[in-house]
């Protein structure tokens, strides 16, 4: 489906806003913010390499909304043998049939976000929409104004939740085009520990636009492991806004794997608002076809004595386009900060491109910060070494690409998850040895 590019998409979005029964005040405010922001133009510095507005104007009509799905089985999207709490959202609706909660209520509260609003959970009141940048990002504002459903997770003080939470979001475009907006709010109380796996998938031949936003609050001494897997079809456009707030002595490990989709934009924003924090964030984008993946990360050091380490790697094949922007802010007084960032890219085909912009902005003097980024091809000598040992060129290349990519998986703790991801990557890189 295609509509003329000249129409005003913002007006269309505003005219088609659905009616909601929860979170009225934050929605009203966000609508105003969205109206003021509009959608980012091609000249917007943050969206310079990702012409998302043009893409949406060309491919989406806001009248479609999020239709009911008749999806009967979700087994193909699950991670085999993963022992976890499962929450399933299909087309932005909670799917009770496929969801199952196994952890105890005394450890962790897992509900839909609208129910948490209805029950007036104190954590929702305190933290919902507290850190999301709705004033500057149009998609964050749009999500806050119009989210359909979401997940609320609240981990009790000094509790280590033994089983991970698997959040599966499926967009079913088998009947009609889908526009879904979902939201997660997660609060980790002091000294708690949890692992989250968030996966997005899609099915069907129709287009889908998934506007996702999440907020995580990690309190003192708490620890969050977070893994995001984006495995959509080539018909899906996804925007994901993640804001993670860290208090003193907390620890964060995030991993983002982008495989498919038409246009993917990830905004990962980490606020280090306490001392002695540790954040590791890893990313891997394996792109082919005409996938366009854009990772924007920000780590904002607001307090002294913290450590952040970022590593994003990409392999671009076909006509794909990889975009990376990594910002490190070190605010005044955030002394003794150590921040590292690295972005490495391999371009496999003649027609793939990469645009990368690492960025350091530092206002404190007693810091150690560095970034490095590279773009190139496979090392000729390494290839020759393998070839001289009787390995075919295809296999040798696959082997080197796999080695390049798999490094990013190293820090993942959960063995089942790690094996699953390892398998996904190997399959993608045609490793058959």
């Amino acid at each position, binding site marked *: 489906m295609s509509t003329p590019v000249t129409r005003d998409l913002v007006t269309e979005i505003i005219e088609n806003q659905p009616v909601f029964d929860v979170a009225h005040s934050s929605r009203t405010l966000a609508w105003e913010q969205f109206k003021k922001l509009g959608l980012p133009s091609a000249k917007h510095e943050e969206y310079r390499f990702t012409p998302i507005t043009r893409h949406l104007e060309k491919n989406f009509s806001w009248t479609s909304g999020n239709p009911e799905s008749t999806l009967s089985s979700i087994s193909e999207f699950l991670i085999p043998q993963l022992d976890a709490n499962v929450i399933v959202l299909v087309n932005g609706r909670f799917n009770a049939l496929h969801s199952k909660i196994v952890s105890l209520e005394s450890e962790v509260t897992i509900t839909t976000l609208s129910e948490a609003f209805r029950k007036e959970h104190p954590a929702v009141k305190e933290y919902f929409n507290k850190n999301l940048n709705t004033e500057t990002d149009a998609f964050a504002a749009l999500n806050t104004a119009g989210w359909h459903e979401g997940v609320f997770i609240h981990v009790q003080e000094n509790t280590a939740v033994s089983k991970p939470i698997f959040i599966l979001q499926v967009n079913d475009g088998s009947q009609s085009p889908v526009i879904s907006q979902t939201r997660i709010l997660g609060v980790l109380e002091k000294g708690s520990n949890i692992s989250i796996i968030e996966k997005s998938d899609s099915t069907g031949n129709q287009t889908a636009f998934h506007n996702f936003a999440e907020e995580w609050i990690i309190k003192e001494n708490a620890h969050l492991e977070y893994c995001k897997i984006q495995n959509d079809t080539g018909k899906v456009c996804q925007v994901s806004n993640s804001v993670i707030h860290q208090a003193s002595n907390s620890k964060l490990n995030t991993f983002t794997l982008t495989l498919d989709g038409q246009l993917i934009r990830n905004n990962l924003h980490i606020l280090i608002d306490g001392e002695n924090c540790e954040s590791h964030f890893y990313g891997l984008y394996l792109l082919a076809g005409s996938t366009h993946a854009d990772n924007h990360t920000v780590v904002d050091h607001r307090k002294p004595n913290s450590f952040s380490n970022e590593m994003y790697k990409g392999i671009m094949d076909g006509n794909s386009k990889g975009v990376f922007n990594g910002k490190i802010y070190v605010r*005044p*007084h955030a002394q003794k900060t150590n921040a590292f960032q690295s972005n490495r890219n391999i371009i496999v085909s003649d027609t793939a491109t990469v645009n990368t912009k690492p960025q350091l902005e530092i206002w404190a*003097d007693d810091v150690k910060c560095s970034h490095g980024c590279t*773009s*190139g091809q496979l090392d000729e000598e390494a290839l020759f070494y393998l070839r001289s040992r009787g390995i075919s060129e295809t296999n040798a290349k696959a082997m080197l690409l796999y080695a390049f990519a798999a490094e990013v998986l190293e820090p993942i703790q959960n063995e089942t998850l790690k094996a699953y991801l390892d398998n996904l990557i190997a399959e993608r890189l045609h490793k058959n040895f």
Partner: protein
Amino acid sequence: MSKSNQVLEEITSKEYEHGWTVNLETEEAPKGLNEDIVRFISSKKNEPEWLLEWRLKAFRQWQKMVEPKWPNVTYPAINYQDIIYYSAPKQKVKPNSLDEVDPELIKTFEKLGISLTEQKRLTGVAVDAVIDSVSVATTFKEKLSELGIIFCSFSEAVKEHPELVKKYLGSVVPMNDNYFAALNSAVFSDGSFCYIPKGVRCPMELSTYFRINAANTGQFERTLIVADEGSYVSYLEGCTAPMRDENQLHAAVVELYTMKGAEIKYSTVQNWYPGDKNGKGGIYNFVTKRGLCAGDHSKISWTQVETGSAITWKYPSCVLKGDYSVGEFYSVAVTNNYQQADTGTKMIHIGKNTRSRIVSKGISAGKSQNSYRGQVHIMKRAANARNHSQCDSLLMGDQCGAHTFPYIDVENNSARIEHEATTSKIGEDQIFYCLQRGIDEEAAVALIVNGYAKEVLNQLPMEFAVEAQKLLALTLEGSVG
């Protein structure tokens, strides 16, 4: 580090050395900017019709453009109608030799330590001196012309070599390239022109010295260097300005054009008045510098030591069009007090097997903000392009900022791009190591900063390296040897 902090605090008391003015009689255009001013400048310079047309075209384009807002600097809006666009030391007739030049002028340059008198041949540098907006004297002209090298003021070149000027003016920086380049194209008053013929290796360093002297004026000069096939030239540029409470605008354009196998080495020691310790006054240095490697195997190398200006906004770039062409950029940018610098480079790889190298060292002290902004763009056709970039920042003091904005855009899969950047302060372990070996704290800081900037300073020609080291010492007085 307590002592070096103390020393750093003392820097602020250091006054700008070149802050004096000379009472030169000047001829000025009225304040403001309109088509009449452009015509006035053109007629003052007895310019041919085509150049006036060119200026007017640029002026009309400028009127349609808006001032760029993206650099990481803040300053009050500039009132373009409150600037004098033409100011020239009064001279009744064009001097034929240095004896006829106003002795006040000669004194001015002697004060700056620049020899305009050819007796001082030992210095071996040919100088073209630009005061306010006009070139006042060019030395060693005859010796250079024996080799066929043309080195003269821009207005002279317009009169004597119109075919060359017409061909290359605006060929690297188009008149509508950006806001300040367009402004410059409309109102530029003078500058230097240099042409190196085929196969000639210029035997001496060529140099331009810029000085803003009059109050309320802007300086808009234009430099054009053309290196014909297989030639080589090393070019130096220096600048100073008096201390004034108001901000003065300097918007220059430098164009370099290299043909097959030619090489241009362009070095700048920029020491415009940076404003006082409270950030009052100083020069706005908004400069467009670009080199085009038009021929195969050509090379352009930029070296800059930036210590002055209240605000610097400058990106010497290389367009690597010829196959196997090479672009280099070496920079040390030092900011102190309330100075702001947003500087870096652009390397545009168009030809095959092109190589570029970027080394940028930023030092920020006081309450200054120092940004590196650079782009490495590998075009589709640029097979086997190679780039290495390194940008390091050194922070001295807890109220300054260091920022890096590198853009890396790759459209060819055989390109190899590396970029690395670090930000840190002088390590306590480094100081400790020196102390252990009997080097006192002040000398240790000096040692480390000099070592830090050495990679760039080494690129400077001898005569300039000395000046640059002195400048570094001046800007960071006390902490540098």
